[in-house]
């Protein structure tokens, strides 16, 4: 039972925490990969998220689903890291050999997904963050404005820009 796992991990059981990692690593990594646009950064941020989770786990009181709570924590870790280090000058295509994405075996839309993942990673930082949070993760503009530290109108403008750029890239 996931609730048992959380409770055991809260009590300091590292084996339970490891199981939590196994269950949620894919979801957290996907979020980090899309928000950072860089596979190596995504690995580091994923590790940061779980280290932070270990520290913060005691404050989880079950008022929301654990996965939702962890998701929010992950968003904060990634965005805080970006605020700390500033905008990266180096931009790297996220997965030059997208082995991670090719694990989605048997998916008939795999090719489109990989193209879209690449296109998302190539978006400017601000546009990518808003696009990922709004269109993929389902956050509202007000929440994004608060999380990213921008005006709500800026969030809407970035989303418009991101969608426009993505359509252009995918039509090439």
């Amino acid at each position, binding site marked *: 039972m996931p609730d048992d796992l959380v409770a055991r991990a809260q009590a*300091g059981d*590292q*084996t339970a*925490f*490891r199981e939590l*990692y*196994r269950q949620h*690593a*894919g*979801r957290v*990594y*996907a979020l980090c*990969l899309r928000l950072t646009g860089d*596979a190596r950064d*995504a*690995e580091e941020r*994923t*590790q*940061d998220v*779980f*280290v*932070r989770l*270990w*520290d913060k786990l005691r404050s989880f009181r079950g008022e929301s689903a654990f996965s939702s709570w962890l998701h929010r924590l992950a968003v904060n870790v990634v965005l*805080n*890291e970006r*605020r*700390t*280090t500033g905008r990266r000058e180096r931009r790297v295509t996220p*997965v030059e050999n997208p*082995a*991670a*994405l090719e*694990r*989605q075996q048997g*998916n008939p*839309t795999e090719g*489109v*997904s990989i193209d*879209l*993942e690449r296109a998302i990673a190539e978006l400017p930082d601000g546009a990518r963050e808003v696009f990922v949070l709004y*269109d*993929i993760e389902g956050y509202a503009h007000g929440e994004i*404005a*608060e999380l990213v*530290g*921008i*005006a709500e*109108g*800026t969030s809407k403008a970035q989303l418009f820009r991101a*969608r426009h750029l*993505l*359509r252009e890239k*995918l*039509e090439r």
Partner: protein
Amino acid sequence: MNERELQEAVNRLPKSIEPPRDLWPGIEARLGAGGGAGSWRRRWYWVPLAAAAVLVFLLLARGERSAWDVTALAGRPLIGTTRLAASGRLRVGDWLQTDDSSRALIAVGRIGQVEVRPETRVQLVVASANEHRLALARGTIDAKVDAVPRLFFVETPAGTAIDLGCAYTLETDSLGKGLLHVTRGEVEFQTGRRSSRVPLGALVQIRPVTGPGTPYVDDAPAPLVRALVAFDFERGGRGGARATRNILALARSQDALSLWHLLQRVDPSLRGAVYDRLAALVPPPPGVTRRAAVALESRALEGYWTKIQRIHFRTVVLRGVKNIDPRTGLAKP
């Protein structure tokens, strides 16, 4: 590709992507305790010698990063249940406690130091390159940090002090009632969605549940401070028209930083009055309009804050050297 096709493609994206390698060993190495020893041993049989050397290096590095040096300045502070003689190490999870006659100095990684005053209880929560975090359960600390913003955090029972490159004194009781006094740079104190920016030469009072009040300069007139406290913490922290009017009547140009916070906290019907008083005391910079500021548009607020902060900084730093006009930040002849 049209908008609908793009949305359909987005909907088909996998919610989960497995990392290309197992990230757990790196996570485990950064956690306070070591678990899963059996699995580690099994893996050790198969890793090449070079990897072993790397692992040893990482373990040594972890040991360095996950503990901070502590020096006793007076008396014999406690780390956990052990009396500190001259110096020692504070590890993640450890509590450092001083009694009424002891003090200690904590080296915050490589970015600064924290002096722990008497009757204080503090815990090391995170010690990594990207995050340095203490929990102050009660007492007083003096922090000095030289680093980029948002690397050093101090949690109190009422919220979190976020270092923006600075020096400050933070005190709290065990319930969260406290005071933050910044002496260099700027600190943000955050409780949930409520936050206060406190530049050098300014203070903010802190209360349980409500969090930080409205910051004020350290030479603010006592009646203004009382009015701010009434606004922030009476009537459940929701302020009021009467307290707002008192503040506006008492505020000087030097108190612009208080009015900037007030603008965002008063009832919307009072924002116009607060803005007008603020604009009369410190005119807004070019590009900041009344409409945008009253609508709390972040660009307008940030622009205004930058000007207020610059004037405030000059006023404090040049105090006793030059006579600075608190309305413009320029030196008076």
